[in-house]
């Protein structure tokens, strides 16, 4: 029990903190003032992740934790790494929200409670090793995010986006639940380890083989089980791909991203993605990817995801090309980024050993996924933050024209925004470059040359629309007579921008170090997140 509390510390801090925020919000006389406490809660949770890092250093540690959790949650460095991304995203997003909501007269305490509970849900999802836990985490996360999307109550777009997100999200959750139910039905287990063990063994019904016609019946049932399991796998993929915003489950993304208040958009893009990818790593690799401990294609999910990856990149990028709103462009490009991450994800079941102690190809790929998530979190929150700072209540900066001449009007914001844009575009020495570089390397190491080429072509397309922001900022003047977006004054956003900008540069300067942490995180995991080497 004591152990469990320790292992749960990142989540417990957020959950208890969330309830406290509710009470404070209920009893305080005036609205507001909750942004800093919320951010502190998230950062405390992140600090807990850092502090616990060395508690997950050996198989013995993990075994102790596993027995405490009874197979519901994984306590390992993969979880901690993802939790850290979530805590970072949540904390920075609430810092942004403190200024944004005030400026736009949206300041109500619920937002902070929602974001805190959603973060707790994200962490549950990221660490879940049981299908029921996956569902609980997913729903805790989603409910908060739906409500945050609808937070601009008087704005029709916000309502529309939230409703679409909610309806389709329920649909996707139903798919996930249906898949989970089928898996349970076929194996009798909801915990991932149990499902994996059941699937690895041939079907056996006690006493059946001895009966007349029993052998045939058994073989039929085996066939039925195999088919249903594959279908269940596709359903689970669909449910999680929705949260990632992968094509063809991406339709809600632009509406929800555009409708949500900008801090919520930044939050959704980053943390929900991290959590959903975490769950996908555990479920797909843990159950289907690594049943033999060697390279496996597991009913074809890598091929399936490779197509999803390419479709996401292509559609995300092509549609982002034609956007006139930067916020919408970032939304579509988030689909494309999801595609890039999926490209590394595809490689995770490969067990060939890499030289230089980098583990297997699969482990390197899983580390690329984590590294990309971190890099994307930092760059994306920074980009949204800079965009937020560039406009105020009178006129928000959302379109390309709104940032025209920003380089002269507000050089500091423009500089910060260019860092993040360059990073998102994947231009060295920003961290985004190394994130893409790792993914491409992983794809090439596993001989997915076509996937790597697709990724490179798509990043080239991406560079086009990202650089348009820079061109607008530095080389264009605002159209005469156009209402100018006036930058707002906000220490909270400044703090976020400086923090993320420094991270973007530092991680770009020493990518090897951070990739090393990610690699450490995937090498020792409770439910495998990448193929280990064959002994």
């Amino acid at each position, binding site marked *: *029990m004591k152990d469990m509390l320790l292992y749960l510390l990142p989540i417990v801090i957020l959950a208890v903190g969330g*309830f406290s925020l*509710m*009470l404070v*919000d*209920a*009893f305080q006389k005036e609205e507001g003032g909750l942004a800093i406490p919320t951010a502190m809660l998230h950062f405390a949770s992140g600090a807990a992740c850092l502090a616990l890092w060395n508690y997950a250093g050996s198989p013995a540690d993990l075994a102790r934790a596993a027995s405490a959790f009874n197979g519901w949650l994984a306590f390992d460095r993969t979880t901690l790494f993802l939790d850290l991304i979530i805590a970072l995203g949540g904390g920075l997003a609430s810092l942004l929200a403190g200024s944004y909501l005030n400026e736009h007269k949206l300041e109500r305490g619920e937002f902070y409670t929602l974001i805190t509970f959603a973060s707790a849900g994200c962490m549950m999802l990221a660490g879940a090793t049981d299908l029921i836990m996956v569902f609980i985490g997913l729903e805790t996360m989603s409910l908060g995010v739906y409500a945050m999307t609808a937070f601009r109550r008087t704005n029709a777009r916000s309502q529309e986006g939230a409703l679409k997100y909610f309806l389709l999200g329920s649909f996707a959750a139903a798919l996930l639940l249906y898949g989970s139910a089928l898996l349970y*039905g076929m194996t*009798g287990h909801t915990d991932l380890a149990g499902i994996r063990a059941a699937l690895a063994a041939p079907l056996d*019904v006690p*006493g*059946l083989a001895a*009966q*007349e*016609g*029993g052998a*045939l*019946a058994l*073989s*039929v*049932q085996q*066939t*039925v089980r195999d088919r249903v399991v594959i279908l269940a796998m596709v359903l689970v993929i669909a449910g999680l791909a929705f949260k990632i915003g992968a094509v063809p489950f991406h339709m809600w993304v632009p509406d929800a991203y555009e409708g949500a208040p900008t801090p919520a958009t930044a939050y959704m893009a980053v943390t929900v993605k991290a959590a959903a990818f975490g769950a996908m790593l555990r479920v797909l690799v843990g159950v289907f990817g690594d049943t033999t401990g060697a390279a496996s294609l597991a009913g074809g999910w890598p091929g399936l995801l490779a197509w999803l990856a390419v479709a996401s990149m292509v559609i995300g990028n092509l549609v982002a090309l034609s956007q006139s709103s930067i916020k919408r462009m970032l939304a579509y490009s988030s689909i494309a980024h999801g595609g890039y991450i999926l490209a590394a994800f595809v490689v995770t079941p490969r067990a060939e050993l890499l030289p230089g102690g980098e583990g297997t190809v699969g482990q390197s790929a899983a580390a690329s996924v984590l590294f990309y998530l971190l890099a994307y979190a930092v760059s994306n929150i920074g980009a949204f933050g800079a965009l937020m700072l560039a406009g105020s209540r009178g006129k928000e900066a959302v379109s390309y024209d709104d940032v025209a001449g920003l380089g002269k009007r507000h050089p500091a914001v423009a500089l910060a925004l260019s860092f993040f844009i360059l990073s998102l575009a994947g231009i060295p020495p920003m961290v985004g470059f190394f994130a893409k570089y790792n993914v491409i390397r992983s794809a090439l190491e596993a001989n997915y040359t076509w996937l790597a080429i697709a990724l490179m072509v798509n990043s080239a397309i991406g560079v086009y629309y990202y650089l348009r922001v820079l061109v607008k900022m530095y080389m264009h003047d605002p159209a005469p007579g156009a209402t100018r977006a006036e930058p707002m004054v906000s220490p909270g956003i400044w703090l976020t921008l400086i923090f993320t900008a420094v991270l973007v540069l530092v991680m770009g300067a020493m990518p090897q170090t951070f990739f090393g942490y990610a690699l450490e995180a995937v090498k020792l995991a409770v439910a495998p997140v990448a193929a280990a080497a064959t002994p």
Partner: protein
Amino acid sequence: MPTLVQALSAVETVNSVSLRYQYGPIFMTVGFALIIAGAVFALATFLGPKNPTPEKLLPYESGSPTTGAKHVRLSVKFYLTALLFVIFDIEAVFLYPWASLYQSLGWAGFVEMIAFLTMLTIGLVYCWKKGALEWET
């Protein structure tokens, strides 16, 4: 590759052993239901005599014409109350199995239920303070 007939018969032979795989009858029931319902509709449509007049096509053949929108706006308070009811209703329902198993769950069960109730209480306090329980505002 065994055929469907083989499969179904095989399923029948093992009915007594494995409860987990006896979906055959369910599928058959569903199938019959669909066939019968469909057949009834089809028969009525194709065989029934038709003699439509404008009067007959009105929603209420002999009523007065309807006025206004068909949707009635209900106050959001109804929904709120309904939601709160569902939440606390489920709390009550959840307490029954816990109470009946109280002995075997031991201290851990007690602590967990207290935690659960605390959370709900915080929620109730929150609703109260935020004015969700007041009908007139």
